[in-house]
Structures are given as C-alpha cells and as structure tokens.
C-alpha cells in the first residue's frame, strides 16, 4: 500500500507539536481531515495543511519528506506501523514509543526515545543530550524496545534506562548510562567521562573505555555465554556491535556508590 506522505514546504517559524501525526491516530482520516489538524505551540495557529503538502495513502506508514529541528514529538506514543523522517527532527522523537518502527534519516534533538517501552527507533544522524531519558519529574527512562543511534549522542545517553537496549555506533558525551536502573547500553565510539555514574543494575558495553570511576571494581576477564547469544541477536542490526560482544570481555562491577549490581564490559 502507498504510504501517507507529508512533504514539508517551509521551515516553521515556531516549534510545532507533531504528536497528533501517528499511524493509529490518522487511521481512516481523509487528507482534508488531516490537513485541518492543529500543530501550533504559540497563539499563532498552524495546521498540517499550512505546512505540509499531503499525498494521501495508508496511515500505517507515514513518510515525512524534509524535516526541521523545530518539529517536536514525532512518533509520540506510537503503537504500530511505521514513520520515516527524511530529515532532522526536534525534541523527544519517539517519546513513549511502544510499538512499530520509527526511522529518522537526519539528526534528532534532545530526549530522543524518551521513556520508550517497545518498538524500534533508528536514528541515522546524531542525537542531542538525554537519549532515552525521562523528562522533568519522571522517575524512569526507557523501559523496553531497541534504540539504534548510527551517529553520536550528547551527554547522559541512557539516563535512568530501565529495560531494553540502546546501541550507539558513534561516540557519546559525558556520563553515558547515568543512573541506569537496568537494561543494556552499547557504545562503539569514544566515550565521555564517568560512564555508569550512579548506575544500580544493567550492562554498559564500551569499545573505548575512558578512566572509570573509583566506584567500579575489577572482576576480571570473562567469556560470557550471554554476550555471545546477544552478539548473534545484534548481528542483523550492527555487525560492529556483534563483533564487540563476541570476544572475551573485562568486567567491572558498579556503581558501588549506588546498588553496585551493574557492570561495565570492554574488550580484554
């Protein structure tokens, strides 16, 4: 079936909330009804029709032609289907994502994949700070699904991660995996200072570890059975990640300041 195509006609002059443009919310709506949906975040009204050229199709796949760093909340609470953004997006892309496939060809703003609980989010460009992290006042971050970042992440990627897997092929800023509750964070590029600060449980795998905090203690070199199973699972998504997990790994347990049941792994 033909996808629903929304071609961006000009750079918006205010930040827009694209949370109404989700497959399950647009199902069965005509192009005219979609054109009337309001997206503004200021007193100046902006509708989908004002900003996008609409080519009708099945809302199970939505394709944004062109993007902007002012388009927030793309794929908010998405449950099924597919969204492809052929460009950049703003804050909180894929927030509360629970199913389906969300692909961003360009860069993502801060809080990409915030609190996602299922599904798959793939970003081909870079992402801002707080990848997968909770917003103001929330206690838990990402709690399921697969988040793949082909570019680099800002500071505190995977903050308060609780379940699910984050795979970063580029580098990450300072404090990746801060306050992790559980889950897995894999980082193939360079790593900023103090990974796993305040982590309670969970696994961080680093290709290029920096100096670790004194609250991580050496547990020796291991060939972990689980790592090789996980390696095969990751093979279709990232061959480099699969290779990293296939070999023997140094294991450091921490953060001893918090619960201390987490681990940082890196190649022996």
């Amino acid at each position, binding site marked *: 079936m033909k996808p629903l195509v929304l071609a961006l006609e000009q750079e918006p002059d205010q930040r827009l909330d694209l949370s109404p443009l989700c497959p399950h919310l647009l199902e069965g709506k005509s192009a005219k009804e979609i054109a009337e949906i309001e997206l503004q975040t200021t007193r100046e009204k902006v509708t989908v029709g004002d900003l996008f050229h609409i080519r009708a199709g099945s809302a199970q796949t939505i394709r944004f032609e062109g993007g902007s760093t002012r388009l927030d909340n793309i794929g908010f609470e998405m449950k099924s289907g597919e969204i492809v953004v052929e460009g950049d997006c703003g804050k909180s892309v894929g927030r509360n994502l629970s199913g389906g496939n969300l692909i961003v060809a360009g860069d993502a703003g801060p809080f990409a994949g915030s609190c996602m609980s299922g599904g798959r989010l793939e970003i081909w460009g870079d992402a801002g700070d707080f990848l997968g992290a909770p917003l103001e006042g929330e206690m838990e971050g990402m709690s399921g699904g697969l988040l793949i970042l082909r570019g680099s992440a800002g500071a*505190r990627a995977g903050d308060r991660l609780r379940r699910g897997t984050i795979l970063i092929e580029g580098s990450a800023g300072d404090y990746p995996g801060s306050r992790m509750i559980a889950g897995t964070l894999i980082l193939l590029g360079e790593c900023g200072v103090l990974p796993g600060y305040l982590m309670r449980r969970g696994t961080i795998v680093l290709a290029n570890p920096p100096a670790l905090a*004194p609250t991580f*203690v050496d547990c020796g070199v291991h060939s972990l059975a689980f790592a090789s199973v996980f390696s095969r699972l990751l093979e279709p998504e990232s061959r480099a990640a699969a290779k990293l997990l296939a070999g023997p790994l140094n294991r450091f347990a921490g953060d001893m300041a918090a619960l201390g049941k987490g681990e940082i792994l890196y190649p022996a």
Partner: protein
Amino acid sequence: MVEARIDGKSASIEAAAERSAEILSRARLPVIAGLGTDIAGARGAILLAERLRGAYDHMQSDKIFTNLDVNRQAGLMCTTPNEARHRADVLVFIGKDLTRIWPQLVERLAPGEIPMFDLPHEPRKIVWIAPGRSAAELKGIAVETLDSSDLHATLGALRARVADKPITAAKGAKRKIDEVAEILKKARFGVAIWGEELLDRLAIEMLHGLILDLNKSTRFSGLPLGADANSTGVTQASGWMTGVPMRTSFGRGYPEHDTWRFDANRMIESGEADAALWISAYGQKAPDWKKQVPLVALVPPQTRFFQEPQVLVEVGCPGIDHDGAEFSRELGTIVARKASHPSDAPSVAAIINRIAQQIGGDA
C-alpha cells in the same frame, strides 16, 4: 524623577508602558526573562505572561534546576541554616566557592560554637571536601579536609565507603576517605552544605544518596545555598500560581513547563521568541543573549546593555527603594522587607501593572 526611555530618548512612564505593550502583544511568542524581582513583581510578570500567551524564565534557572531536578526525580532532604547552627554536630562543607556564594556563611553557621541543642555539648566536627583555600577561612577551628580533583568521583567513593562497599583507589587515598566516612557515620545530626556552581545534578544526586544512606543509622540533612535575585522566591511563586517552576510557556493557553524548550536564552538565540521583557531589579544585569530582538527592560539606573532596549524603565530595588516580599536564605522562607532607603523609583510590579493596563485590564 522616574527615568524611562524609548529608543534611547527620555519618555514618560505612560508612553513607555504603551510602547512596551505594543511590542510585547505584537510578538508571536514573547518571553519574560531575568525575573529578578520580589514576589509582587513575579506575580505580575507571570500574570502578564499568561495574558500575552508568552513564556517566562529566571536568570538563575540553571542553578535552581540543579537542585530542583534532583528533588523531583530522586528526592532531596534539606534543612535551614538555623537548624544546622543549633543542632548539627557534624558540618560537611563541599566546594571552594561557598563563602563567595554566601559571604555570611561562617557567621551564620558558627562552626566554631558548640551546638545549642546537641545533648553531649561537644565541639562540632567540621569536614571540608574540595576546599581549595577556603578552609583557611575557619580560623582556629580544626577542619578535616578531603581534596578532590573530581567531585563526582570523590562523592561516589565516599558514599561507597559509608556503605562498606569496595572501591578502586590507592591505599592512602582510601584510608583518607575511610576516615571521613567514619566521621559521617558517627554524626548524631550531620548537615552537608553545597553551592550550585561546582556541583551539577549528578553530583547532587550522589550527595543526596549519601545523605539517604546515612539516615538508615543516624540523622543527616542537606543545606543548598541557592542562588541570588530572589530565584527561590520566584520559583515558589511560580509553583503556587501555575503548579510548575519557571521555564514555562502559556503559548497554548495553559501553562506548559519544559526546561529545554523554554530556556529564554535558547528561545531568543534560535529565533523562536520574537520579543523579550527583561527584569532585573536586584542588580545591573543585562541579558546574556547576543541576538537582536525587540527588548523592554526594567532595570536599575546605569545598567549597560549589549544593545539599547527599545523601551527602558528604571526600577527600584525591593527592600531598599520600596517594601517587598522575597525569599530569605537565612530563614529559608519568604519574608517581608521594609524599604531601607525609600525612594520614588517604581517597583517592577507597578510598571508591569501599567503595561498590562495598556493590554487591557489589571494583570
């Protein structure tokens, strides 16, 4: 004589208010920034933001949110300076900037005195983590210092040792940390004191975790020094008016709080905010942004600007030129202050009221 200027030329208050109303109500998304004012000024500013469907932010938001974000994501246990002075048998100072942030700190906490309400009546134990040269300010008082090149790592190691967990450190460094951990564990009522300039949210969350761990076997609390320009008072006013702190927008007709989207500097630099009302009644402070944007400024005389504001009204300082209610660091609550040198310099609330009248109705 009340001074007001439009495009650099002297003007009446009426004309300035009218021109301000025109600039702010014509904008798509005006932002009220700075917000260094007393409670009445903050109330007026937030009501004006609601009427304009604009956003508001405070110049010290970054420092406020280092504590507030920990408070609302992990919890924070705090006490007042007087409670610390009267009851604490252990004081833990953190960072070299404490007396710069609060010059009366030593006088207020009286670390050299025996705490009035501590039963054994013994001299307090003082610990200073990462003191730089600050520990010398406590003349004649024994201070256990713990130097640190990385506060995040040091606070983490200390918390781990308090909980009897292993750490990776050289023998000497570990022994030193263990000594401090023993002092903390033996405290009957300890208080940790920190500023928001050297500690970020993660360091404060680690420190708070340490305080929580200590509370399993004794009593321990925290004393954040906070920031100036009545930032804590404005945060509280915002809380009781909208339910959320500053960095809030009324763009959609209801208060929407977002510390990233409604950061005034980011909004101006990105071009999302297209007019600004800058308020700084406590000091001659101009905005940090570099972008040219239609600007209305309520500031003390002789404030220097990067760009001349379209409208400028000189205002008085709360507690000096006029009476005002503001947050008191000493007491940890909002207090009423009488004008020490009453003058006819107008209050921020009075000018905002004039601007709001031009938009229609009282703000």
